[in-house]
């Protein structure tokens, strides 16, 4: 149940942010699927690891791999898939919370939140680097195959 709901809302949220950032229409659906899968990965990883690093890292790796694949299939820059898929994982709410504490004068809570936001952001970024390193090795043959097929 949790997975099904997570899948649906991950999908909706990715498509929604795709509309807000004015994605080309042909990339909305792939971005939605990738966002949904990444969110399911996040939930499942959260069952086995209660920290913030592993779930975010794993879902970023998944977004990176699938995003690069989709970029080849749909012929679009990779960033177009990264941005909408990231929106549900990203530490936006934590940054906001920490800055709210900063405004209210709770410096300790603010520093705690900022470091947590940096941790989440860094684990997402490292996940992307890992995925890019893998896909740079895997996907070029696939790309060549597709180009030959289209000819």
């Amino acid at each position: 149940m949790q997975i099904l709901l997570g899948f649906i809302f991950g999908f909706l949220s990715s498509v929604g942010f795709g509309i807000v950032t004015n994605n080309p229409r042909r990339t909305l659906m792939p971005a939605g699927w990738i966002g949904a899968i990444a969110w399911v990965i996040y939930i499942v990883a959260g069952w086995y690891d209660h920290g913030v690093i592993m779930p975010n890292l794993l879902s970023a790796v998944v977004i990176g791999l699938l995003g690069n694949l989709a970029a080849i299939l749909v012929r679009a820059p990779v960033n177009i898939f990264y941005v909408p898929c990231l929106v549900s994982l990203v530490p936006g709410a934590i940054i906001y919370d920490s800055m709210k504490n900063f405004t209210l004068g709770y410096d300790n809570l603010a520093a705690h939140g900022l470091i947590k936001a940096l941790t989440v952001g860094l684990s997402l970024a490292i996940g992307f680097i890992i995925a890019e390193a893998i896909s740079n090795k895997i996907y070029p043959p696939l790309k060549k195959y597709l180009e030959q097929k289209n000819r």
Partner: protein
Amino acid sequence: MDSLDEKDVVALCGQVGAVLLENGAETSRVENTVEYIGRAVNLPIICHATMTAVFVNSEKSATTRIFKVRVGDFNLQKVDRINTLSREFSQHKMTFKELKESVTEVEYDTSDFNLFEKCLGAGLVSVAPMLLFKATWFDLFLSFFVGILGYLVARVVGQHSKIPYIAVAMGGLSISILAHILLDMGIASSANNIIISALMPLVPGVPMTNSLREIIEKNTISGLVRATDAIMAGISIGSGVVIGQILIKAVLGG
């Protein structure tokens, strides 16, 4: 291809870089695309992009141009179209003149989803999956509409005011006021959950992650600029929400 004016090529490359950067492409992609176009016309070009300017230099002579950039919101459609154009150009499916015309067309193009679709999108983002099992269903349902309102306010203020960060601050303010009113009327059960959920379209999470990615890729300057921008946006949203809270307390005496 020899008849091309070097200055023209450099100017066009700078234009391409500026459009890409303004609409949310990463620095490395901007530099690669520009150098790619240069190679396609046999003119070696060096491009250096930071978040505030694009430098384009032709290696054959001392032609250098600097383009100032004001990084704005994401508009990934433009990034995609420029990308398609540069690919077609480097495969020689398109002449230089055509490329120039289409780049200018993309730069001033305002094609977008219509307002209803935008609102729907913002509303969908506002139902944060992060809160699915922490907030009540009715709160999430409310935050769908609160999020749309916040997005609309931020958009309208952004169109009418050139002061940076005021748009997101006003968005945060209106979301906070509405959430607290809903709480005081006894409709919602937690103002904080609604606020966090409804802030999702405004909050600078994606720029933060992109900035860390750029720092890891050693584009340190643009990474730091993006990170500072994200933190400033966070501060203004936070202050907006707090001001809203104080206002509501003063008016309703909560």
